[in-house]
């Protein structure tokens, strides 16, 4: 009878431990995603400043303004 009475406590304890472990795993995954986001955002930022990326907006206008198109 006593052993049977302890079973719900053991199951409850296991469930609580599993819940905590799950939360820790979710937190770690979320943190990893945030780090990855920072890296990819930085790369996007740097790529957007590359000469290739600037070719369209600046070099095109360089030619336009030399011809005095906007005046």
């Amino acid at each position: 009878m006593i052993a049977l009475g302890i079973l719900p406590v053991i199951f409850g304890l296991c469930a609580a431990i599993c819940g905590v472990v799950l939360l820790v795993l979710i937190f770690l995954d979320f943190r990893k995603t945030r780090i990855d986001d920072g890296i990819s955002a930085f790369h996007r930022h740097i790529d957007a400043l590359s000469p290739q990326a600037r070719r369209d907006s600046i070099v095109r206008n360089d030619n336009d303004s030399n011809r005095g198109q906007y005046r």
Partner: protein
Amino acid sequence: MARDLAIDLGTANTLVYMKGRGIVLNEPSVIAVNRKSGEVLATGHEAWDMIGRTPSYIVAVRPLRGGAITDFDITERMIRLLLQRVGVSRFTRPKVVICVPSAITEVERRAVTDATRRAGASDAQLIEQPMAAAIGANLPIDEPVGNMIIDIGGGTSETAVISLGGVVALEAVRVGSFDIDATIQSYVRREHGVAIGERTAEEIKIHIGSAEPSAQDQSADIRGRDLVSGLPKTVRLTAEEVRFAIEEPVAAIVLSVKRCLSKAPPELAQDFISRGIYLVGGGGMLRGLADRISRETSVPVLMSSQPLEAVVLGAGHCIENYQSLRGMFMGSRR
């Protein structure tokens, strides 16, 4: 649907870049207002022609001084007119990126963004002028090397060291080409007893002004009003006199460049010697200024291929890549 815009709201000139189209407007930052009725009579080139030549009830003013808004209401009306002229209506509200001097205060920043939003923008973001200038001058700021840029505008002079897409060192002074014009005006008044207007002072600077002696030094006949008799008078001004007159603002600009160089990390400082310093902005076109800075800093100084448009082109690139370059906007770093 409105196309997003980048605006270089300069003390001297205003340039507008439209997403996908390039620079669509370039004119002086001047507005003429009827004092009696409060109506706007002219903006840009037309208003510039009116400076110092208007009847008492018309006032032609520059709403920005030292890169900051001095008259909020007039600035808002000027931005509203600018937006209307490039096709923005009540129903099309574009995102706007505005270039401002890095030295402006939090209150001045808010004044610019509020004026732009009230003028019809759905979102107004600010970008520091030296950063925009470096993008527009096509400097390799995406690389881990030291890129130094000097932007000399009408009201401010800013020097920045940029590497890996961010500002490493920055120095700004509220001295620009208008201060150079003002020193010429006061010199002619003090030494020759003749009053001249700001447009004449600017013409003197452009034609015979220089920061370093050269073989092309010339003299010019200046017409103004005699302070004693009140009658028109012509005096002869030499390039040497003008150089002496403008020494104070020129020295202040050179000193700010030196201060920025001293702030730069040593690893980047060596890059300047091999790559040089880039000069942009209308004030940078003063004859001999690049040579003067080069002589005093022992670093080569190169003029950008588009000194007047570099800032708005850089801001235009930010509006073309709005999401990727959001981190560059001044508000996003707070």
